[in-house]
């Protein structure tokens, strides 16, 4: 199991290198945005897989509350951490892209704002987790908080879209040309594999640090038996 996960991870890293190489040096520059558009080959997969990981987190949270099995909590931490990391990366990449194409680091457009809120929501769950020592509490609380955060995301999305609709509609990137699809797909799979590997790894660490599954040896009871 462990070797399978590591294998997937190594495959993911390899694919990421290949995909990024193709994206950076092989794919043609885009018509309007030129070379800057190459950020997309890492940006879009980050967004997809980040969203996927938070969906995993939601599923694991429900599974934990349903079954009460620790292994779901282990996976939940993994998924939460990866979705926060990818969420943070998404924001940084997006800001770099925005700086070049729009000339500004930040704009309160729907996707940016929703990504930011999502990042804050899941980072909040991790913060809550870090404050709770007791494992049973920590597991149920982070499951509950994950479910609520996840349910909040579509609401935030609709609100922001509506809220901002009066002001401006940000132009979305041009429809994607077929020669750009290949590096995009490679990197998406790469990110997916890396995410699965990291979730599995983090889950394994969490289950190790949980402590002995079995109680200490039974000691002999002194004195008279039930009288």
């Amino acid at each position, binding site marked *: 199991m462990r070797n399978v996960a590591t294998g997937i991870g190594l495959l993911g890293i390899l694919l990421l290198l290949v995909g990024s190489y193709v994206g950076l040096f092989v794919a043609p520059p885009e018509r309007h945005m030129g070379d800057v558009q190459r950020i997309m080959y890492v940006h879009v997969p980050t967004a997809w897989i980040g969203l996927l990981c938070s969906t995993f987190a939601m599923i694991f949270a429900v599974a934990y*509350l349903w079954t009460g099995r620790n292994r779901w909590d282990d996976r939940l931490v993994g998924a939460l951490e990866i979705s926060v990391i990818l969420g943070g990366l998404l924001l940084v990449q997006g800001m770099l892209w925005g700086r070049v194409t729009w000339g500004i680091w930040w704009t309160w457009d729907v996707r940016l704002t929703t990504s930011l*809120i999502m990042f*804050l*929501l899941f980072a*909040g*769950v991790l*913060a*809550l987790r870090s*404050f*709770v020592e*007791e494992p*049973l*509490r920590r597991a*149920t*609380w982070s*499951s*509950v*908080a994950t*479910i*609520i*955060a996840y*349910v*909040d995301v579509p*609401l*935030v999305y*609709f*609100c*922001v879209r*509506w*809220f901002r609709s009066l002001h401006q509609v940000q132009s979305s990137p041009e429809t994607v040309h077929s020669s750009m699809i290949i590096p995009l797909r490679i990197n998406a799979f790469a990110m997916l594999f890396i995410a699965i590997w990291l979730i599995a790894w983090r889950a394994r660490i969490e289950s190790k640090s949980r402590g002995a599954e079995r109680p200490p040896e039974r000691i002999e009871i002194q004195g008279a038996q039930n009288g």
Partner: protein
Amino acid sequence: MSTFQQTLFVARKDLLLGWRARTRTLAVALFGMVTLVLFSFAVAADGEVGVSAAAGFLIVALLLSSILSLEESFRLETEDRALEGLLLLPVDPVAIFYGKAIANFVLLVLLGPVLLPLTAIFFSLELDGANLLGMALLWLLAAAGIAAPGTLYASMTSRVTGRDVVLPLLLFPLTLPILMAGVRSFDLILRGDAMSQLKGWTLLLAAFDLVYWVLCGALFSRTLEE
């Protein structure tokens, strides 16, 4: 005693406690007022700018005050582990959640009569019967949207060290839809609803409330497990 009666009884208990500690409850309202004053100086909001900023200030003041109010509600429960005492009784935990959420909702609504007129004065809003009614309705919806997740999260954070940081950290991003819907609809009420969007925002707030009152009530009893 049915779950419904238990709910009302818990809510009554919390409101009684709020009344007994009314100086503290008043202090929360005062805190809300202070934030309003701070905002008006932080953003030099006069005239037309003031009108458009007022709605935002009002909702943010509500959000900031809600943290104090929610923390207090659970400080009373954890001081001598009174909440545990209730859980030992044959009470449905759902009743405890909804009872406390209702009481917190009422306490937040009560901030309205303090903060709303003050905002009107500070930012020279034109209030009349019709738009007051609309604002009152929206205030109820906004307070409800904060009370349900706020009660759930405050019950968790009241039992950890570092609660002062965690509660706003969890609650503020979550209540962003309330902020946006509240701000936009207040603004529409005050400055005219040319494209009749008000109904949409109100429905969105109501949907948010519905989702959170159901979801948080369903999840609350699980957070009590230790």
